[in-house]
């Protein structure tokens, strides 16, 4: 290993990665430049705009303010990790259906922030959604359609949960 470098192992979107990195390497640069996952964007680069938001061990974090070495042993989910072979993630569908974007630059970070919110709070009020989005800046939408997109996703996920519960009850 090169002098001064540190080995990090982490799981990104379900795949295990090992890399040798400079300690100063930011998580967002590891994701974009070394793993080629450019869905995570760099906006302000000062931990304000939230475009670089990913999930680290299930929590929304700003990957421009996390060192790659801090994520060692962790589990990262980026926007590329949301969709499954069955289709888009409900939050992605919500942004599509409710037009929760215009230029799309902030969208990956906003989506990951919303995914983090709905994990903790599957049925948020409008106020809770707006509070949860405090750490993401969008200069296009005025947030109205983003809020509607998250509300849509929450209702779709709740309906899917109910269908699963009914199906489970019927098989019993």
């Amino acid at each position: 290993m090169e002098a001064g470098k540190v080995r990090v192992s982490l799981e990104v979107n379900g795949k295990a990665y090992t890399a040798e990195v400079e300690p100063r390497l930011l998580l967002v640069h590891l994701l974009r430049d070394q793993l080629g996952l450019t869905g995570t964007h760099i906006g302000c680069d000062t931990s304000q705009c939230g475009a670089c938001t990913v999930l680290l061990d299930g929590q929304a974090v700003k990957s421009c303010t996390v060192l790659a070495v801090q994520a060692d042993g962790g589990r990262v989910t980026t926007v590329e990790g949301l969709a499954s072979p069955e289709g888009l993630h409900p939050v992605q569908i919500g942004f599509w259906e409710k037009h929760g974007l215009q230029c799309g630059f902030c969208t990956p970070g906003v989506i990951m922030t919303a995914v983090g919110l709905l994990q903790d709070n599957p049925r948020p009020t409008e106020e809770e959604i707006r509070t949860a989005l405090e750490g993401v800046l969008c200069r296009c939408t005025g947030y109205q359609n983003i809020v509607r997109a998250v509300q849509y996703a929450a209702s779709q996920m709740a309906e899917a949960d109910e269908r699963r519960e009914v199906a489970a009850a019927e098989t019993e």
Partner: protein
Amino acid sequence: MIPKAFAYERAHSVAEAVDLLQQAGGAAKLLAGGHSLLPLMKLRLSAPAKLIDISRLDELRGVSVVGERLFVGALTTHHQVATHPLVCQHLPVLAEAAAQIGDPQVRNRGTVGGNLAHADAASDLPAVALALEAQLHVQSPAGDEVFAAEDFFLGPLVTALPEYGVLRAVSFALPPSGARSCYSKFPHPASGYAVVGVAAVVAVGARGTVEFARVAVTGAADVPYRARAVEAVLLGQPPQPEVLRAAAGHAADDGAIAGDAFASEAYRRHLCAVMTERALRRACGLADAAAGA
């Protein structure tokens, strides 16, 4: 923006972190959540030769009540503090302030210990630490030391934390039963930091007068301060609107109020009174005063 290159080492115990700090002879900084330090390093305002990562030390995590104090481990995140049942039950003002730091992503990473050791003059937690007579529990080469919050914050980004010391935990005094509290903040519209933030804890006795009052102000001066002049006016008085307003008028008396590019000294003095009145009214169960108050 890329920080200047640095060496990185992970500490496996607080004692090891103290040793590593000592070996580095002042060239190293501790890394916890990194949400105060890394932004400074990215701007190259700080360029330590080495980071000692203490973020995996489970001994520095958690919340507990011991006797008349609530202890919060230094690595406890703002999100954990804001949502912890013990904090919400015993010190709702601490949860209220923690929930206003930064934004959700920042609260998921930023730690109580990092926040207090960083000592930004506009940070929210120092006001609560002062109002709840916090003690900072430090491990250093000299052994274990305890600092009162009032002796800890010395200036912007300057604390009494000894060289090679590690902040292990902070403990907050539980106010008398029946006390009510509030953290009232006027946030900077861009940064979210407090232009002025006021923590107030008030207890009204059986005779209907204020028996206990703790008020502290952040953001207004170069260092957060206890607003003792406000407390002195409140004590022994009934918590009536005119009493609270008169007391709040002294909110700037104990601080060296400073102006900057965002807010003039006169405006900050004005905000001190307004935000203190709001905090006191809410702590006393009164509705917010009419606009302009």
